[in-house]
């Protein structure tokens, strides 16, 4: 399977199954499109006809171009057949029973009242609650006990707003640091916060202990304050921006993300990215809102072309700023073409419900944070482990090849089948796909690969 596209003045050809990326001239671009469906003479004739007015495209050149395509095919870098399906369940089978990441819902409550919140203002459609140290400690023990030989363990402090339960967060980190050496583990913590309660104590702690911090900021003040308001309806932008700036400055280069949400109110989210850059932030993420289709903040079909154009303009901005010595990172455009994941990982789907689970303040286990509150998806608890094996099996069987819609998609080895929760909410099945999200993802991958191509070729070609 190949995927061809033109973007940023480049003709790009992806050989999906080998992972090869080629930058080609116009004649090669057309020839590759014809190559598999037509005999050589036909390909040469059709291409020659198209370029009849171009003196540089001679018969000899076309013959040479055809030979180059054949050589790449023979080297396994073009038209590589998809032979991966029998391996699709291997990674999950091999690591069955191993849990390596937990999303700890330390606070099912929030000090902001954002109407677009997927978690119903942090409550997950349930009662307000915070996690006790005892529950959190048992969750960490559960993770260690079930992590097999896996050394790096990921724990996200999530909510609601986790800093509403900051003392417990600190106690849990101290507990984890106390057991990790003997357990031969390395905890990597992430904190996702709205920033309202950040102070010097939080900054010191986060910069010492958190592998990553995710800081929620939607960009422009008027966009941010439209949704991210307190219970009195006051916007939070003025409060949090100086706190985020202070935290990031003190972070000394460690991982962080300014994470924004774009909605129907700002499909032109590039303006929000520019605001983040103007504020001095360089590690950026902007995500489409997750909400019901009838929610007023939901992205519409009319928003789609606007959003797709933003992604292209964002890639262009990123390339220009890198050349100007003012680079920034957009999380979705991070792609490591030479050292990315192996094929097993790429086809095995996300780890929700198997290697990754969410833990509620009461110690219940769910396949991921998006299923919390939906009792049908409760997997078990941290004392008894997974008892709902029927639901877990459904998640274990989720992979790229288990999703009929992914079968012929060129981006399947970049997304691994997408988000099970989005699929479930869009189609009623974790093996469906959220097609709107797929459209965005494919555009992001085209842009990410263009940026990677520009980084390698620069002005050379």
């Amino acid at each position, binding site marked *: 399977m190949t995927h061809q596209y033109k973007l940023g003045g480049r003709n790009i050809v992806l050989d999906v199954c080998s992972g090869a990326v080629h*930058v*080609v001239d116009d004649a090669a671009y057309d020839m590759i499109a014809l190559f598999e469906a037509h005999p050589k003479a036909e390909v040469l004739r059709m291409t020659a006809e198209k370029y009849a007015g171009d003196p540089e495209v001679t018969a000899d050149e076309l013959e040479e171009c055809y030979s180059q395509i054949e050589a790449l095919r023979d080297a396994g870098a073009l038209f590589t057949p998809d032979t991966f399906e029998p391996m699709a369940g291997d990674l999950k089978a091999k690591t069955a029973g191993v849990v390596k990441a937990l999303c700890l819902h330390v606070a099912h409550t929030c000090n902001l009242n954002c109407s677009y919140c997927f978690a119903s203002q942090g409550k997950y459609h349930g009662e307000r609650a915070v996690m006790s140290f005892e529950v959190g400690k048992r969750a960490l023990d559960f993770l260690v006990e079930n992590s097999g030989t896996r050394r790096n363990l990921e724990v996200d402090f999530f909510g609601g707003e986790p800093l509403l339960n900051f003392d417990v967060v600190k106690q849990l980190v101290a507990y984890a640091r106390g057991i990790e050496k003997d357990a031969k583990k390395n905890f990597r913590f992430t904190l996702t916060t709205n920033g309202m309660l950040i102070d010097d104590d939080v900054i010191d702690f986060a910069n010492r202990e958190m592998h990553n911090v995710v800081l929620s900021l939607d960009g422009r003040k008027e966009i941010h304050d439209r949704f991210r308001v307190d219970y009195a309806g006051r916007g939070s932008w003025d409060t949090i921006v100086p706190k985020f700036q202070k935290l990031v400055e003190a972070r000394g280069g460690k991982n962080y993300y300014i994470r924004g949400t774009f909605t129907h109110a700002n499909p032109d989210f590039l303006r929000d990215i520019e605001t983040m850059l103007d504020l001095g932030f360089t590690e950026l993420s902007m995500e489409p809102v997750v909400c019901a289709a009838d929610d007023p903040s939901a992205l519409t079909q009319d928003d789609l072309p606007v959003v797709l154009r933003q992604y292209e303009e964002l890639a262009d901005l990123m390339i220009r700023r890198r050349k100007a010595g003012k680079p920034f990172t957009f999380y979705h455009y991070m792609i490591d073409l030479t050292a990315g994941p192996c094929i097993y990982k790429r086809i095995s789907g996300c780890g929700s419900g198997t290697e990754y689970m969410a833990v509620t303040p009461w110690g219940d286990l769910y396949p991921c944070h*998006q299923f919390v509150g939906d009792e049908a998806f409760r997997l078990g608890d941290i004392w008894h482990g997974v008892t709902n094996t029927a639901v877990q099996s459904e998640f274990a069987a989720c992979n790229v090849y288990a999703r009929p819609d992914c079968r012929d998609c060129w981006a399947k080895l970049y997304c691994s089948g997408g988000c099970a929760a989005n699929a479930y909410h869009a189609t009623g099945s974790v093996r469906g796909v959220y097609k709107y999200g797929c459209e965005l993802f494919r555009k992001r991958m085209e842009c990410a690969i263009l940026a990677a191509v520009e980084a390698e070729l620069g002005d050379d070609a």
Partner: protein
Amino acid sequence: MKHIQTIKTRNLCESAKNGGCGECQTSCQSACKTSCGIANQACENTQKETK
């Protein structure tokens, strides 16, 4: 004349040989967190194939 430039990439077919160690980060793609697709992850396998 060179019509095709090939960018350096990891060969996915080759990656099957020593792949599947499972040490890499979990790939949550939920947009309500910070969606981490497999594309923007690093391989953490210390035994991966040499090119």
